[in-house]
């Protein structure tokens, strides 16, 4: 296990007791405001010394209350993007960015200043001081500072919250590349299910200082029981897929266990494994194979279960090849279509609705 956290830290009025294990990659911490996400990240960073427990990263014990071991923060070699930017006000943006470099081992690999500036669009800011930067600019510099410090571990506390969609779309693929091409473990706090789905290898859901649910991202995010935490719009399934081929009209064909899916061109080589997220909300259920529809992705499936809540909606869980899909439809439609477990149906997924942000390799 690459990241193993098992800590307890009681505070007045807030009792943190969190244990989880994660196999490298990106571990997403997910949960409502005030459930202890930042506290956990602080414990991993060494800024907080928990009352008891153990923290092990990549086989190295960073903290062990019983052995009175508490590796000081500066020896942990972290890139921590704080929830507030925490830029050094007396240094220029450039000096902020390169601050960590001088303390990093000379041979540690990592991106160059230019690469980071390009990625984050902060080249024009290099000679300014942080005081006059806009909120998003500050946050981007903070991300750059963490990336440039040649960290052995990345801690990202809502790094993209202050950024616009376009900028997010540029940074997310970079984080994916980091995840796939390095073995830097990352702890990623976010309120955005789309971000988590795209990036996370493992998801840890916190609720009032406790772990409510933890496991591989596709499992946790496809769990109908998670609908409440994720919000209705974000419920869905994450399905493993393989890139089959790239078509001339800009579509990429993926094969999943239940058939094939088309989505806008991916730059992944044919044969590569990938993951596709299919939101329950984006799936229409049809009794008969539909024709004359603009939706390209139509997969045969078998209804497994119908779960109704208090509202007018029903979650339909379907078996589709080896995978399970979710569809969120109205109770009225379920009745009209006479849906019942065991029934053969077609899941209609708009190709473009399998959107770019919801696809992650790996």
């Amino acid at each position, binding site marked *: 296990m690459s990241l193993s956290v098992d800590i307890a830290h009681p505070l007045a009025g807030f009792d943190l007791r969190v244990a989880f294990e994660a196999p490298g990659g990106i571990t997403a911490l997910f949960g409502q405001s005030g459930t202890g996400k930042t506290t956990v990240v602080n414990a991993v960073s060494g800024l907080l010394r928990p009352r008891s427990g153990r923290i092990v990263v990549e086989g190295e014990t960073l903290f062990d209350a019983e052995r009175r071991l508490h590796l*000081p923060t500066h020896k942990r070699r972290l890139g921590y993007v704080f929830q507030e930017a925490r830029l050094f006000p007396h240094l220029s943006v450039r000096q902020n960015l390169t601050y960590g470099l001088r303390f990093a081992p000379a041979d540690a690999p990592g991106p160059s200043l230019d690469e980071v500036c390009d990625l984050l669009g902060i080249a024009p800011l290099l000679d300014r001081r942080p005081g006059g930067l806009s909120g998003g600019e500050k946050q981007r510099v903070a991300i750059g500072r*963490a990336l440039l410090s040649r960290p052995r571990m990345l*801690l990202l506390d809502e790094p993209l919250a202050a950024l616009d969609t376009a900028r997010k779309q540029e940074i997310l693929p970079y984080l994916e590349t980091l995840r796939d091409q390095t073995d830097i473990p990352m702890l990623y706090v976010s309120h955005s299910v789309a971000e988590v789905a795209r990036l996370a290898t493992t998801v840890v859901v916190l609720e009032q200082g406790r772990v409510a649910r933890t496991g591989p991202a596709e499992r946790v995010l496809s769990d109908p029981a998670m609908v409440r935490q994720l919000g209705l719009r974000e419920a869905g399934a994450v399905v493993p897929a393989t890139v089959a081929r790239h078509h001339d009209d800009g579509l990429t064909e993926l094969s999943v266990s239940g058939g094939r899916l088309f989505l806008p061109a991916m730059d992944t080589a044919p044969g590569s494994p990938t993951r596709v997220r299919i939101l329950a909300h984006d799936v229409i259920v049809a009794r008969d194979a539909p024709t004359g529809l603009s939706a390209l992705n139509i997969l045969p499936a078998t209804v497994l279960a119908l779960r109704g809540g208090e509202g007018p909606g029903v979650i339909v869980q379907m078996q589709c090849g080896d995978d399970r899909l979710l569809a969120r439809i109205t109770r009225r439609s379920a009745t009209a279509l006479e849906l019942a477990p065991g029934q053969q149906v077609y899941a209609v997924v708009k190709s473009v609705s399998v959107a770019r942000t919801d696809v992650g390799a790996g």
Partner: protein
Amino acid sequence: MTGWLGPEEWQAVALSLKVSLWAVALSLPFGIFIAYALARWEFRGKQVLNGLVHLPLILPPVVTGYLLLLTFGRRGALGGWLDETFGLVLAFRWTGAALAAAIMAFPLMVRAIRLAIEAVDPKLEEAAATLGAARLQVFATVTLPLILPGVIAGAVLAFAKAMGEFGATITFVSNIPGQTQTLPSAIYTFLQVPGAETAALRLVVVSVAVAMGALVASELLARRAIRRAAGA
């Protein structure tokens, strides 16, 4: 200008500058260290240390000078030891005047720096630690630049105080022209002479001019440092 002040008076001006500059320069590292300890650490005897630092402010300067004389005089407990061990003689030398000035100015210096340290957001120091900076490196690259205005304020306060210090100095190292006769001692000497007020006034003007120059320079420096620290 040489005509305006006599050679002995110039000597006093030069000596005062030398004494004050050394006093500030040598005590500054200690001042920063002690201010940091008082601002950031919890330790036994903290209040005692704090009290000791403030003592020269509370005691009449004559008393401080007398205590210095008892301690660092040639026959004093430490004075003899320093002389034998390091060949460092303080009594009745300009070095002693610098010591007296440093000690009298120390509380002012420490207070200013301490206030500045207390105003530094520890979150920035934490951020530096996450980027790999060890404690001393954090101090040198984050804390120190951020407290620079306070350090400058402390140093200039101390310098001004050192330029004006009289009671402890004359009690400790006497008033020997060329050796320990600083500007204030020279002024005092003139004030002992009926009708020499104008002579004293000339020295006062020099003293004020020097200190004001330092003050204005420090304001400009500190303003720049503040503007930097404000990040604009």
